[in-house]
């Protein structure tokens, strides 16, 4: 290491103008240059940026992509999401581990490469996948994993692992990724032919109130999953007192099995940024932030370039709507590996340079959001819809879909299907039609909306995708008849246990209790009372958790219990002779027996 810790920190702090709310950027820069954020760097940041040590230390410990001690030059993060597991994660991870001579979580003896596991990286349509540094490696096999290690040992340059570039902008000189778009069905709204600049030009002809009215007339609802009416959200922020307001685009696409925002950011970034600009105009904001998840860092340079082009083309900056006196600009805020930051108030905390603990509400972000200013947080897809609504008109938007659910929805389809990828379908499309499109012939269980959504069985396949039937943020993971719903639920509970911020009791403890309870049931040691307890825990988590994570994270258990109850019931039994089935004397004495037999202690 030629540069001292102090120098690196000083330069990082200068690059953000010593703005303490930009601690994320400083931490990312220090991590990138030093390979970690050691205590000395925490001290230096504390002095240079005038934030407390507690805040820096807390932030470093919170995000998965920050390390407090040296690991390696190159980190391989193998995605262990359920879809990757179906596609061969175990073989791939073992190949990596064997070839590197380490286990997951370790670094090679020469300090060159470390191996870690990570949650869904938004590549479920090309799983198994991994991140090598910022480089995405898809369609892995055990053999390919071994090659990756051999190549890295030879040249230590993750970028050179890419042999064939993906389609569309994945081959753009600033992206150069092997990622494929897998656009299987482009619909008329979100993934339609772009008409750059049109929507902003048309918005400029309207007053802000008229823009909001257009969005309300189109009956646009948030595409992140919760479905809050976008126009009302904007109106609240517009009405909220404050000279400074913000538009934030939530591109922290972390729900396992979701990747449609990845495709939108790759192919329709102008549409996303136009949507943000229009939102800014509507609510009186001059500043926008795109919060981009760390896993999509490979898109950052490309997106910065798109922003630069928009500035020079007068679609951002001073000249957006000169006659309206409206100016607007956008900056990109990188995340650092935390699912909970997809929750809008946690995302704002992260933008302000803190750990991603969700906030107490009220106040809502529209009242007091980023830096205490009224802030609208919208999903990537929602903003694309906004652009389309302004361009093609509210009627063209709302004529598709249903009364409560206007327009189309992008679905990220993965798992046991022959054509994984992104599908744009009108709201109201039955699940079975989607299954027919994607080739999910043997579908037995579906995870709709990712793990925080629900697991449904064939009895629900006639139901439709829309806000008033089966609402979804877009993930559709298909499982065939060879998969065990309980094992899937268990894997998702492990995910939530890792990703809970730990702030409130029901989520911090509930996820662990459910995960352990499932293990007991899966081992054939459950009792009917365990299933009742699952339901009780879920009820408390839903009602008492502080944010959307804990209010939904029991769903893998609760919804699989509802859809596949018989599979649970075959595994549980009343205790015989009053003996708790969870206690196994042989298991409990195994360690002592081993020690007695002379095993090493």
């Amino acid at each position, binding site marked *: 290491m030629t540069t001292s810790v102090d120098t690196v920190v000083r330069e990082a702090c200068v690059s953000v103008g010593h703005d303490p709310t930009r601690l994320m950027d400083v931490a990312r820069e220090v991590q990138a240059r030093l390979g970690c954020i050691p205590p000395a760097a925490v001290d230096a940041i504390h002095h240079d940026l005038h934030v407390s040590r507690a805040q820096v230390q807390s932030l470093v*410990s919170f995000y998965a992509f920050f390390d407090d001690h040296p690991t390696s030059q190159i980190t391989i993060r193998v995605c262990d999401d359920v879809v990757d597991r179906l596609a061969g994660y175990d073989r791939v991870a073992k190949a990596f581990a064997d070839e590197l001579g380490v286990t997951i979580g370790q670094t090679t003896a020469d300090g060159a490469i470390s191996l870690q596991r990570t949650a869904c990286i938004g590549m479920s349509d090309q799983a198994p996948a991994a991140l090598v540094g910022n480089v995405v490696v898809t369609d892995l096999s055990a053999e390919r994993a071994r090659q990756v290690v051999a190549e890295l040992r030879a040249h230590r340059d993750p970028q050179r692992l890419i042999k064939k570039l993906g389609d569309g902008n994945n081959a753009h000189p600033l992206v150069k990724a092997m990622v494929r778009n897998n656009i299987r069905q482009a619909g008329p709204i979100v993934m339609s032919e772009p008409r750059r600049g049109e929507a902003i030009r048309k918005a400029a002809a309207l007053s802000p109130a008229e823009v909001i009215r257009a969005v309300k007339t189109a009956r646009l609802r948030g595409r992140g999953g919760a479905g809050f009416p976008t126009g009302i959200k904007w109106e609240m922020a517009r009405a909220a007192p404050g000279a400074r307001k913000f538009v934030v685009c939530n591109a922290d696409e972390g729900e396992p099995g979701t990747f449609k925002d990845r495709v939108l950011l790759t192919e329709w970034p102008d549409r996303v940024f136009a949507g943000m600009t229009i939102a800014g105009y509507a609510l009186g904001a001059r500043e926008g932030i795109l919060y981009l998840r760390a896993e999509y860092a490979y898109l950052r340079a490309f997106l910065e370039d798109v922003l630069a082009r928009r500035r020079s083309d007068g679609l951002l900056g001073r000249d957006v709507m000169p006659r309206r006196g409206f100016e607007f600009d956008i900056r990109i805020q990188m995340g650092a590996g935390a699912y909970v930051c997809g929750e809008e108030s946690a995302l704002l905390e992260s933008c302000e340079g803190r750990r991603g603990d969700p906030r107490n509400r009220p106040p809502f972000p529209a009242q007091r959001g980023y830096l205490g200013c009224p802030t609208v947080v919208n999903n990537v897809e929602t903003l694309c819809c906004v652009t389309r609504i302004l361009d093609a008109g509210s009627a063209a938007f709302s004529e598709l879909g249903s009364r409560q659910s206007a327009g189309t929805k992008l679905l990220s389809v993965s798992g046991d299907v022959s054509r994984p990828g992104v599908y744009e379908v009108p709201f109201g499309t039955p699940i079975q039609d989607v299954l027919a499109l994607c080739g999910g012939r043997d579908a037995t269980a579906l995870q709709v909306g990712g793990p925080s959504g629900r697991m449904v069985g064939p009895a629900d396949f006639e139901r439709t995708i829309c806000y008033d039937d089966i609402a979804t943020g877009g993930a559709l993971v298909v499982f065939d008849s060879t998969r065990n719903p309980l094992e899937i639920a268990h894997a998702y509970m492990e995910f939530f246990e890792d990703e809970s911020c730990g702030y409130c009791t029901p989520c911090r403890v509930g996820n662990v209790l459910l995960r352990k309870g499932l293990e007991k049931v899966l081992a054939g040691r459950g009792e009917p009372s365990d299933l009742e307890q699952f339901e009780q825990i879920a009820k408390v988590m839903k009602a008492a958790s502080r944010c959307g994570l804990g209010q939904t994270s029991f769903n893998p258990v609760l919804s699989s219990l509802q859809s596949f109850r018989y599979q649970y019931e075959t595994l549980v039994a009343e205790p015989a002779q009053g003996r708790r089935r969870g206690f196994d004397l042989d298991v409990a004495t195994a360690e002592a027996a081993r020690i007695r037999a002379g095993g090493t202690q």
Partner: protein
Amino acid sequence: MSADPSLILDGREIPFVPGQTILQAADDAGVYIPRLCDKPGLEPFGSCRVCVVRANGRTVSSCTYPASLGMVVESETPELQAMRKVLLEMLFVEGNHFCMSCEKSGHCELQALGYRFGITAPQFEYQFPHREVDASHPDILIDHNRCILCARCVRTSRDLDGKEVFGFVGRGPHKRLAASTGSRLKDTNADVTDRAIDACPVGALLRKRVGFAVPVGQRPYDTVPIGAPEPVQEARR
């Protein structure tokens, strides 16, 4: 002249001052809502969730939720009491709470709530996590086994002691209290007179050499439940 604003708490009209939380309004009206992370004088935190109430049909933490005009709040319903009991049981099994050897026993708010809710044994399995004790400081110790992550010490140190001795690190079940400088309490400017130490509702943050001073039977929660009306406490003393 309009009357003071009021809300309905369990069928009873109680006044509030605009800006107050439901919990503060209840306290002023002499109605106890169980709580752990909330402490008067500290910024509301909302982590333990024991103070959950139904406010106009929504389940919210009363310590963070603002009181509003005509709001209908339910607190002492069987459903909410059952929920609170589950939350307390979660806290008991999550850590290592050995009451029989804890200096805080009889003064502990978690224990007192266990008594108040009649918990004889939690329904969940004990997790027995491996946690540390930081006894590095000459006069103060942190026993992480007992910490419920309520941030009372964090907030007191920051806002009342003006020190910021404590913070949190990690996330999920691995979230834990940390001394903000270095990793040990001895490296901080924590002092035995800090108000943060008194803020701990459990036995996680203690002064050394002063435990077990009050005889069993005379401790605050030996005979009087936590949250009992003041006159009752006075009468029993």
